[in-house]
């Protein structure tokens, strides 16, 4: 706690919002900015140091690092958004139903959640993507399902808390059915309790996808993607350290900014 409070940037709201704004701006508008091509290879300019033409230099194939860096967040963000949405919908439904139903259904669903939590995520993801290929749709669904369990667990306990609230009791006394209580009283409020968990899951999924790319099973070349960029350039790290440092900084700043924002709420 003390260490964190010393890290001033984790508490500076303006800085956090600015970082997130910059990331959003870049991710949304990268294709419309007048950048060099991300794929054009210049065999006459391999592994160059930063220059006026190539602001962050070039990689081993002579591609512009700056341009690739700005495009590099898009694949991970799209997949992280999709996977988070999938895990939220399934996780919140499972968790809320388990808490609302109670009894054997709660026990059964809770054991399924425990089972999913016990699976080694990354290894399973490696298996899935080596079986089904690097299709973004498959990866989103796989990541979404993998990260359903933590969401479901938090949704279950959030629902249990809500069920003890007086306005839910009154709804029961006034003849509300379980379904109408679920949709009318529980779900609108569960969302507020879950915001932190969902935002954290989003960053974990972001990191998981980048890790997959780093291992060669996420984004496929020549797509510019931060994890993949690190993997492709790590052999040339000594020649141009920026090749590795820049994507790390982008990924880390995005994840830290999201987590810091959540801490603020």
């Amino acid at each position, binding site marked *: 706690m003390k260490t964190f409070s010393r890290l001033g940037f984790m508490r500076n709201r303006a800085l956090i919002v600015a970082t997130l704004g910059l990331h959003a701006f870049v991710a949304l508008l990268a294709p419309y900015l007048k950048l060099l091509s991300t794929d054009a290879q210049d065999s006459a300019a391999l592994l160059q140091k930063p220059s006026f033409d190539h602001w962050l230099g070039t990689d081993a194939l002579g591609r512009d690092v700056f341009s690739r860096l700005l495009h590099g967040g898009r694949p991970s963000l799209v997949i992280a958004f999709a996977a988070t949405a999938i895990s939220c919908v399934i996780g919140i439904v499972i968790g809320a139903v388990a808490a609302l139903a109670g009894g054997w259904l709660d026990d059964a669903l809770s054991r399924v959640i425990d089972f999913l939590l016990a699976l080694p995520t990354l290894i399973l993801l490696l298996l899935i993507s080596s079986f089904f290929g690097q299709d973004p749709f498959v990866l989103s669904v796989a990541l979404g399902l993998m990260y359903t369990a933590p969401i479901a667990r938090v949704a279950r306990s959030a629902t249990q808390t809500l069920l003890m609230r007086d306005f839910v*009791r009154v709804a029961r006394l*006034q003849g509300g059915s379980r379904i109408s209580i679920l949709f009318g009283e529980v779900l609108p409020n569960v969302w507020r309790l879950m915001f932190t968990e969902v935002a954290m899951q989003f960053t974990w999924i972001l990191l998981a996808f980048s890790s997959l790319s780093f291992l060669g099973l996420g984004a496929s070349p020549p797509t510019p993607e931060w994890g993949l960029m690190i993997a492709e350039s790590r052999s040339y790290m000594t020649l141009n350290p920026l090749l590795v440092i820049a994507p790390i900084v982008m990924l880390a700043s995005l994840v830290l900014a999201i987590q810091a924002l959540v801490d603020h709420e």
Partner: protein
Amino acid sequence: MTTPTQSQVLGFKAVTVRAKNESRESRPILDAISLQLEHGETLGIVGGSGSGKSTLLRLAAGVLAPGLVLERGEIETVGKNLLGASPVERESIYGSGVALVAQSVGESLTPHLNVLSHFRDAVSGEAVNERVLESLAEVGLGGEKYLHRYPHQLSGGERQRVLLALALVRSPQLLLLDEPTSALDVSIGSEVLTTIDRLQRSRGFALVCVSHDLGVVSQISKRIAVMNQGRIVELGQTSQVLRSPSHEYTKALVSSIPKLDQRIRESSSQGNETVLVCRGLQIVRGQTTRAIDSLDLEIKQGEVVGIIGESGSGKSSLLAAICGLVPISDGSLQNGDGYDLSTALQNRSRTVLSSIQMVFQNPDDSLNPMRTVAQSLSRYTQATNSEMSSVLLSVGLGEQFLTRRPREMSGGEKQRAAIARALLAKPRLLLLDEVTSALDVTVQAAVMKTLADVQRKLNIAMIIVSHDIALVASFVDRILVLRHGQLVEQGTVDAVINSPSDSYTQNLVEISGRRLSFELN
């Protein structure tokens, strides 16, 4: 440290405190507060929620909550400006100069430390055990057994006494108390207050006690400051402030306190129709705890019954069982038509369900925070807009509240909306579980008045549960006294209040009488 010749232990000079991001035009949290306290003096500060009384007390201890700024003024505690003091300097003053006993009795002791370990920072040197024993005995915890107890092995009253001993062990010149009895039952709170009063007289420290309850502060302070909206609206001798209050707010505050001999609702005509019958009712909570044991109760249409009891008496369990939220374990529970009320909620017909409605204690919890009042009111009752408006009006809320959300309403308004929602179901029996205990005294009086009007107009039966015997006595036709799940006494208000037969009831009545007879102080 302080110079002994100085007679002032606490001084506020035109102190104004504001929320950080608010404009200059907004109402400050503390508005030009000036007050002085000399050695050995006692001061009580009363006010409703949001009046600034807790902010003031914390400032006296040198603490300003994050998000607040001291705009103007000076504060001097035992001769020092604690706000500007260094942490080391403050630590030297805490305990020996000024000591604070915070409000939440449950959270102020560290769960994994026993009582003796709590004193370790405060008492050092030789014969620690003896000195701790001595200070514990002083607050009424005699015997070595208390030394090695952990917080969870102590009752609420005992914890409050340990906190008091901790605060006093280094003989501070100034003791600050924040709501010293709000977490305690009436009888235990009263004993704690007696202890505080005795210690103050024998030790002679200065005392500032903050409370929403005039009865509490009047018992232990010679002077009273009444706060409202960040200002001290009245300051004077306790007896004078209470006997002849000059400010409008103080007048309202004094007249709002429920009194044993003052009715706020006249008894109405009761029908012959029965709305609830229970025979030999038993409710078991947890594994074996008997929350209610063999209770017989019959309620007629239009009758208002009050149930008094302290925490653990089973009064809330009884209400929860009557409306069907808690299963009964033995005995019978029927409504007037002979319908068995041990049926689970989901198997009851809508008519049976709506015939018994309940209003809960916590106004912040009783409305769905995401919905407007209109949505909350109509979702299960299917009431039309005009029905809602007229019921809202009858509980003292205008039509404009239909579109409001709970966060835009005060505690009293929320509770009124919750009552309106219960009424929209057209119940024959309305259960009220400590509905006003979270509200300020003035608001409480207004809400009870509204309930009395509603009862007279609709002639519905009510069961009102409260720890406050005066409040119940001023409102109901018949009183039931519960203790540890047993009915110890029941009868008309007159019979129970004027000639209680059970010693437990006698005690409750006596305390309640004592709390309100400030003139004797």
